[in-house]
């Protein structure tokens, strides 16, 4: 079980909810479950999301494991220069 | 074909070309003669990336009309090294990492060469003002100035 926080525009896309409990062991499972609960998140997930796990920001690599009780933040995919 | 025939000297070699009256020397160097070291950064004489030396005078080749090179001496970056022996300025630019992307570098080397020819022992301020006609967006100029100082010192030592 992990607690996922949706921030900024992602939170708005999930109908304003921003803290959600999800049973998922890796990113792929997390995205699948979130899309089921919040279909409006799907286009965001397709476009690419940054996943922060206990403070470090990762790409949306499906196999990335989510440690038990990890703090997960979903952020929009960042642009750099 | 219509055009003006020009006979000139480039990096010590006699060169002849045909050009339109409104073609710039930069366009001729790059597009007709394959000397792509001089770059077009702006086309209006503001960035110095096209700098060359024309009869001992530093100029923006984008502001020189190609026919104006008739009978004169043109020096470009391609003539700065002698065979495999780099000019001290070229050597010092590499050593001091005075370039990152390198696109402004040919222009800076021409400008620095001209500066040191006229002033072999410049102060930091004289270097900065002497190179103020060349824009660099990557380095912040710090390492460029140090490279010129070091090269000047080396050239004075060798003289």
């Amino acid at each position, binding site marked *: 079980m992990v607690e996922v926080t949706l921030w900024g525009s992602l939170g*708005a896309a999930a109908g304003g909810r921003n803290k959600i409990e999800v049973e998922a062991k890796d990113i792929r499972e997390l995205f699948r479950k979130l899309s089921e609960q919040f279909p409006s998140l799907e286009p965001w997930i397709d476009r690419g999301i940054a996943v922060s796990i206990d403070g470090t920001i990762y790409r949306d690599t499906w196999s990335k494991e989510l440690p038990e009780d990890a703090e997960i*933040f979903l952020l929009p995919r*960042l*642009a*750099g*220069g | 074909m219509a055009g003006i025939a020009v006979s000139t000297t480039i990096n010590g070699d006699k060169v002849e070309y045909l050009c339109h009256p409104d073609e710039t020397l930069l366009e001729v160097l*790059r597009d007709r003669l394959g000397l792509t070291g001089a770059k077009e950064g702006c086309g209006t004489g503001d960035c110095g990336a096209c700098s060359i030396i024309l009869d001992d005078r530093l100029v923006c080749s984008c502001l020189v009309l190609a026919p104006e090179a008739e009978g004169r001496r043109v020096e470009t970056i391609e003539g700065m090294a002698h065979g495999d022996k780099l000019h001290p300025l070229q050597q010092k*630019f590499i050593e001091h990492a005075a370039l990152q*992307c390198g696109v402004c570098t040919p222009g800076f080397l021409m400008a620095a060469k001209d500066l040191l020819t006229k002033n072999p022992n410049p102060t930091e301020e004289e270097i900065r003002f002497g190179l103020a006609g060349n824009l660099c967006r990557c380095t*912040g100029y710090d390492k460029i100035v140090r490279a010129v100082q070091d090269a000047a010192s080396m050239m004075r030592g060798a003289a």
Partner: protein
Amino acid sequence: MTVNFDPRYLKREFQSVGTRPLRPDGIDKVTGRARYGADFNMPGQLVGRILRSPHAHAVIEKIDTSKAEALPGVKAVITAADLPNLTDGDAAMFDVLDNCMARRKVLYDGHAVAAVAAVDARTARQALKLIEVEYQVLPHVTDVDEAVKETAPILHESVFTEGTETRPGKPSNVAKRVQYGHGDVEAGFAQADFIVERSFKTEQTHQGYIEPHACVASVGPDGTADLWVCTQGHFVYRQHCAQLLGMDASKLRVTSSEIGGGFGGKTHVWAEPVALALSRKAGRPVKLVMTRDEVFRATGPTSATSIDVKIGARKDGTIVAAEATLRYSSGAYAGMWAELGAMTAFACYRLENVKTVGYEVLVNRPKTAPYRAPSSPQAAFAVESVIDELAHKIGIDPVDFRIKNAAQEGTRSSYGPIYGPIGIGPTLEAAKNHPHMKAPLGPNQGRGMACGFWFNFGGQTCTDLNIGMDGTVSLAVGTVDVGGSRASLSLVAAEELGIDYSQVRAVVADTSSLGYNDMTDGSRGTFSSSMATISAARNAIKVLRERAAQMWDIPVEEVIWEKGHAVAVGEKHGNLGRLSLKQIAAESGKTGGPIAGHSELVADGAGVSFATHICDVEVDPATGATKVLRYTVIQDAGKAVHPTYVEGQYQGGAAQGIGWALNEEYIYGEDGRLQNAGFLDYRIPVCSDLPMIDTQILEIPNPNHPYGVRGVGETSIVPPLAAVANAVSNAVGVRMTHIPMSPPRILAAIEAKGSG
């Protein structure tokens, strides 16, 4: 495969990493041999030129290209009709398509409407003049604060503000509203003994790379194509161009030329799909080079902003609440610029109560593209100015005030996640103790300092490491080298293999030779490719050990790799001695063929980075001109692979920030047209504007990289706007709130103070 930081590296003595050898591409660049975007030609090539809108906002009623097509020497003319919409519902790609060539409306001065390919430049220019376009001119809006008003002309009828509680009833230029933060700012402010509240404005700037966009495109009748182009990401360009033109990506080979500066401005396509479309129609290669005017008018500058900041603190110096409302212009198409501003604004601080709200605002200006830590400098300017003012009000030293409130490991960031080990505290302590702080200041002089933050990324990365039979190593990477990364990556390969740097040669491979690589942006070039290089080198070492085992006829478990040699270990074979990489390579033909190591991975966990800058200025009260006397950059690099190039990134970013702070801005007229589309009137710093820029590299290892490397390229542009503004404000005794602080603005501020 994850490659994690090995804490033993803290004590490790690096042989190659951390040294300062000469870069491999140096000689080509100082002799003029290096080839940039416009230095390449293909036989039979045509010259491409683009026709651009002279209006800031208009409907395209009709385009008649017949006269242009009839001009002798013209081989192709295209409009949006030649670029059918193949974006299949991908709104972001549709925006790219429409931006490359307007389909129905032109949305900014310079928006492309048609293009020609002709036998030479004069014919191409003539042809453009023969294209007849009928426009229905519409009212325009170019200012970020004007664009949010009810009465503003609307750019896109289909855009309704996202992110509001109730769905809006009518279209708006506010594309998005985003919110970040935690705690309760109202309750926080109630506890404050001191509050400072101010509004700020920053004008639009451009990355200002000296090399204009340039490419040569060649499409064959069988649909295969070649593209030579200056770009920060040739794989991304391939993907986007293939998608927009309806080609298979595998049929389009993109070769990255040397790049004459990018800074985020060459991460998107503008002219490239147009060049490909022209070539496809003409059946010949097309060379398309932008003029400087086109670069300013029609590529991707930054956001202009309007930001309100309110910060409250107790008299003991603890910040109790911080709030910001940020309006960022995105140009004619929405991006995520306001969101990045809202995320980064308070990222340096440890706050119980923080709230940031960002508005993405559409204006009739070119589509904003990233510029080195996009959106962070503007937000930092506003926040760091208020922090300074608040420190002054409380009567506490500005550095100490920041140290007291700086984020640490375990702090909840203002954008959400909790921080791991970070470097802001150390950069502030280093600033406090830096000799710069003790330099004496004279009349009309002022000192300012500021902090900055940026995310840094990883990304998809492939690397090939091939060992030649002579023992030299070829390293093929996919991240474009913008500032010397080939040298750094060669150092990393040399370090892993235990050989001399001179034996390694790194090249940037084209898209046919390597798997996909994300672009060189987000400070990821060295971070990502070094991770992949380390991984590839370790794979090659496995093979080298196997070959040595074969040569000795012993089990591979009894062979280790040490300092560039295979060493036989153990009781039975310990006396066999060593085999050098050269020796093993020489026999490779007999032991199983070429020796190589490959790596395809997603480099990740790049780690955030922080910087603190100190700036001294002198302002001439008669002219408002500012001279920068001293400038110091202190930034955490994790591990500096090639310290000279890290210094170069620090100095370069600082110089851009200084230009942004003091002079650079886009000036639009009442007619919505850009007035200063050239280097004369868009004034970037020249050599005589700047002093030597002092740098201090801190190394707090990034736990997610084998050597602890963090990205370094971007963060150094974040603090300068605020550091310079704080210095100028201290020098003239007036709080400056409008960037750039050009002489007229400073004079106006001095005069207002005098008469106030």
